[in-house]
């Protein structure tokens, strides 16, 4: 399992586009927002939690395409099925690698981008906490979507259509936590619900992902 994790991390680093792409996209989204809604700081401050969450979510979505499709094309997935590693574990590791190369950098960069959107100073802790708790769920759910579309040519758009509705609960609780934190309110409830969703998906989704992956490889 560790071998798979290290391999995926190494590939993400070398393939140029692993770390950087998601961060760059996040930045671009945040930069485009004032152009589309106007530069009034009061307005930006209100929508900042939502925009940061939405930007992080879309950036995670971008890199899902590559998660399994590359392995499918070069035959690695077939070989993984025959390997001693259970497919559920392999997919969990791939989701972890995805989070480490996409979700985690987004979490770390979010406060900086929050500055640009006049995010309320007192809420940074809640923002980072909500993203840290929520982005793993995005990776795990995204892995399910990637497994579902693994054999489909140009399945990227379909992947988005399938995964985005599944992201709604995480987005709602995550953004709500960030919003309440920014407003100085107690954000524990949405944060706990968010954590609950993340833990449940981490525990259960790999089984669904492995099932559909085997179906798609036949």
């Amino acid at each position, binding site marked *: 399992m560790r071998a798979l994790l290290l391999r995926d991390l190494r590939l993400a680093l070398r393939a140029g586009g692993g770390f950087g792409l998601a961060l760059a996209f996040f930045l671009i989204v945040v930069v485009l927002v004032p152009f589309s809604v106007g530069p009034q700081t009061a307005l930006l401050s209100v929508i900042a939690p939502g925009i940061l969450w939405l930007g992080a979510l879309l950036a995670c979505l971008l890199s899902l395409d590559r998660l399994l499709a590359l392995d499918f094309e070069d035959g690695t997935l077939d070989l993984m099925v*025959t390997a001693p590693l259970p497919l559920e574990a392999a997919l969990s590791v791939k989701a972890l690698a995805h989070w480490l190369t996409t979700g985690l950098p987004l979490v770390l960069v979010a406060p900086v981008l929050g500055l640009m959107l006049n995010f309320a100073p007192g809420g940074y802790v809640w923002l980072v906490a909500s993203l840290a708790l929520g982005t793993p769920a995005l990776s795990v759910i995204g892995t399910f979507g990637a497994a579902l579309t693994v054999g489909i040519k140009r399945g990227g758009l379909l992947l988005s259509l399938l995964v985005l509705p599944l992201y709604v609960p995480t987005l709602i609780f995550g953004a709500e936590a960030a919003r309440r934190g920014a407003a100085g309110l107690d954000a524990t409830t949405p944060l706990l619900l968010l954590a609950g969703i993340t833990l449940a998906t981490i525990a259960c989704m790999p089984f669904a992902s492995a099932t559909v992956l085997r179906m798609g490889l036949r």
Partner: protein
Amino acid sequence: MELHVTDLNLARAGVPVLTGVSFALQPGKALILRGPNGAGKTTLLRTIAGLQDALSGHITGAEDRIAYAGHADGLKAMLSVSENLTFWAQVFGQRSIVDALAAYALEPLAERFAGTLSAGQKRRLGLARLLVTGRPLWVLDEPTVSLDAQAVAMFADAVRAHLAGGGAALIATHIDLGLDAEVFDISPFRATTNTRAGASDEAFL
């Protein structure tokens, strides 16, 4: 442990393709699979490897004992030759890749990125992967594609060494590898238009 295939019925895209396939493969032996293109050799090999399900029949002696090599090499272009092999060695729980590199004369290429190799070199690397799996039963689908005569000889030597060590090999190939192996022709097992084997399409006919 022997590989036993009994009365296997296989389908491809809802249509029966092979029926009643039966054979046995003992340790130390190799079996060459022959048959026209499209007859179902790939389907048969993939089913034995566990990638697909058969419609009916039994396969014993295959669980966790197979190293499969299909048409794609399973290589990562952005990893070096030794990194690729080390990865598979770790996944399959083995340690050393030195013997695998030596068997296919890959030492001079060890630090090259797999993406920069020629087709023949990539195939040699893909076959070298079999040696780091430590698995006794090799299931190979057209392994000699892209290999020149010298590389084919390397491959044949590797298979002989594997068999001598108690392993077995099931190989679909058109080429005469010079191995002392039985030939299994799947043509007699091909499904006809009227075969009823429980394939998906039959429910609608």
